[in-house]
């Protein structure tokens, strides 16, 4: 066990955990931020996606000891009122079915738009293919990302 000072959603959080603990479990079990989901634990499904200094990272494979001073953003911190253009587009297009994968999809999508504000459908497919949706909402996700891209440009 060791103490770590993490920057999570703009706040300092101190945790006392095994240095090998993935940030996913620090978030879920220690900080009770359960918006970031567990789907596979081997960075193959994307449900655990967070932003590390604005870039999409699979938190199930990020040991807390490697987080250091980097800014961790989770779905809870993506926007204050749940009104990030990606979140709004998700609601406008009524994307979700079971909803379990969607926070990971939203975190991946918002990171994509930060680095590529006008992605083509192929760009979206390539970037988002690390996020599995078992319910099959991929088409709505694609359209929602395009909608968010248009709305962000305004």
């Amino acid at each position, binding site marked *: 066990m060791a103490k770590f000072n993490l920057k999570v959603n703009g706040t300092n959080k101190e945790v006392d955990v*095994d240095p090998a603990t993935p940030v996913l479990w620090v978030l879920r079990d220690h900080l009770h931020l359960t918006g970031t989901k567990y789907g596979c634990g081997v960075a193959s499904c994307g449900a655990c996606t967070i932003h590390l200094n604005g870039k999409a990272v699979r938190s199930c494979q990020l040991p807390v000891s490697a987080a250091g001073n980097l800014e961790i953003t989770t779905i809870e911190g993506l926007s204050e009122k749940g009104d990030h253009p990606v979140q709004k587009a998700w609601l406008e297009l009524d994307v979700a079915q*079971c909803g*379990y*994968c969607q926070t990971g999809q939203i975190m991946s999508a918002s990171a994509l738009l930060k680095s590529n504000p006008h992605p083509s459908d192929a760009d979206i497919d390539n970037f988002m293919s690390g996020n599995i949706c078992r319910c*099959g909402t991929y088409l*709505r996700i*694609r359209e929602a990302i395009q909608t968010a891209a248009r709305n962000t440009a305004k």
Partner: protein
Amino acid sequence: MGNDKNIYSRRSFLKVSSLTGGGMMIGFSWMASLKPTEVLAGNTAAAEWIELTGFVKIMPDNMVKIMSPNPEFGQNVITSMPMIIAEELDADWKKVVVEQADFNIPKYKSQFSGGSQSIRQGWQLLRKAGASAKAMLLQAAAAEWNVPVAELTASQGVVYHKAGNRSLTYGALATAASKLPIPEKVELKKTTDFSLLGTAQKNVEGQKIVTGKPLFTLDYHQEGMLIAMTIRPTAFGMQLKSYDATEALKMPGIKNVFDIKVYKEGYERAGFDTRTFNHLVVVVGNTTWEVMNARKKLAIQWEPMPEKKEMVAGWGGKKEELIPAGLESSADHMKNMRGMQKKPAPVLRKDGNPEAAFAKAKKVLERTYSAPFLPHNTMEPISCFAHVTEEKAFFVAPTQVPDFIRPTLVANLGISASKLEIQLARMGGGFGRRAYCHYMVEAGLISQKIKAPVKLVYTREDDMTNGVYRPSYMVTYKAAIDEKNNVTAIHIKGGGIPDNAIHANRFPAGAFDNYLAEGWTIPSNITIGAFRAPGSNFIAGAEQSFLDELAETIGKDPIDYRIELLQKAKANPVGKNNDYDADRYIGVLELVKEKSDWGKPNTKNARRGVAAYFCHNSYAAHVVDLTMKNGQPVVEKVVSAMDCGLVVNPEGATNMVEGAVVDGIGNALFGGLVFEKGEPKQKNFNQYRMIRHREAPKKIEVHFVKNNIDPTGLGEPPFPPIFGAMANALYKATGKRFYDQPFINALNTKG
């Protein structure tokens, strides 16, 4: 609803959200904004929901809370079922708040989410629930104004007395209405008078989902809660022999290691009590990561499981189930299935004289199809929260069938049914997997043993390798063709491990004078369970591929040939109990033909396949257009035609069909577990291929047949035929027919 120390509470974590199109979820904080004058005179305490019926509560300010009875796993009944109530209630959907009901059969009558039955079985019940509450409000208004109820109308949460030029909101009437008896008989609206049903409404939980609120069992947290994991053999056909917990117990955060027997000695299983391994090792600790690490330190000895016979009381009555010993492999499965095809099999249906027709045939078309075991792979792995004490057995659980697991819990935990409380958590996927709730028994037993609240967590590996799969199947279709190119007989023979998928009374039974259906099974120690349209999810693809090949053989258009057969089945049905409505089946074929521009010049070069199927009370047809790129299929477009009667919520309905299309394409192309010496070779998503963004169709168009038939389901019906449409489209695109799933195997094999 849980104890005061709960961090998780359906209301406490929610913030006020802006209305995103009606049906929002709200929390405690909004009550502070209630103006005193909105509270009814005489009720100066903080405003509370006034309960009219088990389903409907009203606030003085005219907000309406509707309880959604059925467990939710993405089929969005949490929106569509309250919509049905709201319609008959004549509530203003923009002022409706939905709350997931707890398990309570006396109150809600039916809380079964499966078989695509929620809307179908809830239709009358929910309409009556809405109509009763409205009747009480009308009666209260009539009493208030001293006028006959017949002079009153209600709309959008307000009761009007036209003659007296006055109105009262439901909120103002609620207290008086709540004192009236709930009427036994109520009048329901004419479906042509619906104003809400049939309009596209957004998921009432959308805001919570996109902001990551704790909705799922895996998110549940309670003070003092421990984490538990169950450890099972690495291969089917094995069982626990012994274990040494010494090293595991030394690991940080670990509280306890012990073993449990899921079902007690002599317990007779019911149909949904399926569990793969009865004797499990349990590790309990403070946090998930600590338990994950500690379980790796267990020294466990497994031994071969002897052959067993267990009584199972399924829907067909009591049956003895043989669970063979041995370590099974996929290679043996295929070999054994081919072997069964060569042996006589039980006859399921026979019309006319198929043997004679085949003997006389000029040509016989014979094709064999197969498919592997499929894991459900719900995105949220299996989990369950339980806190079992002398006073209460409290669960927060993902279950599609709380009423089925109740007697199992009572029997195996030794609790009384009256002490059982189940909060129906939103599920990260169901697909039938969460109808088998052995994990609730496991969590309950663990909680009893450690005398503490516990959240049982399955890792993805636990989830993927624990069985309750979609069975493996094989089927051979044979058609006898005479010298005039008429199909004179059909013979379907097939089976599965351990269930077969032959629906002998479904189409094309009834369309052929000579018809024989035979089915066999092979017992297995690999457990199976319902997987999105059981049986249908294999046989539809095989049947629709065969019909396609048969149509080509006799020189007919695939859609025209199906319609021709259905018209024959309608005009001159052969045999009895033909399980389909030919008109509705033709209806979806004609709709998909029209909407896909089938046979038109602009689709002349399309690489397309068609398939249609009827199951779980609804009709579905798809046309798949694809192209090949580097030897891999790219699905350009799918046009889907559905007949599910009245469409309750077109938004949710369209989403379901799209999802089923994507799911079907993924399973047809990639899905399948491979077994070697009893062990599934794939244990996680880095080994098991799921369909991803880049493989999803570019476009899906969904069309619904318009009729006034009472609504039927959509969870399963669109899924089975997509396998056939894919196989048929791949044929046009590659010149090759695909008989064995997953199709990617043949696609990646040269020649």
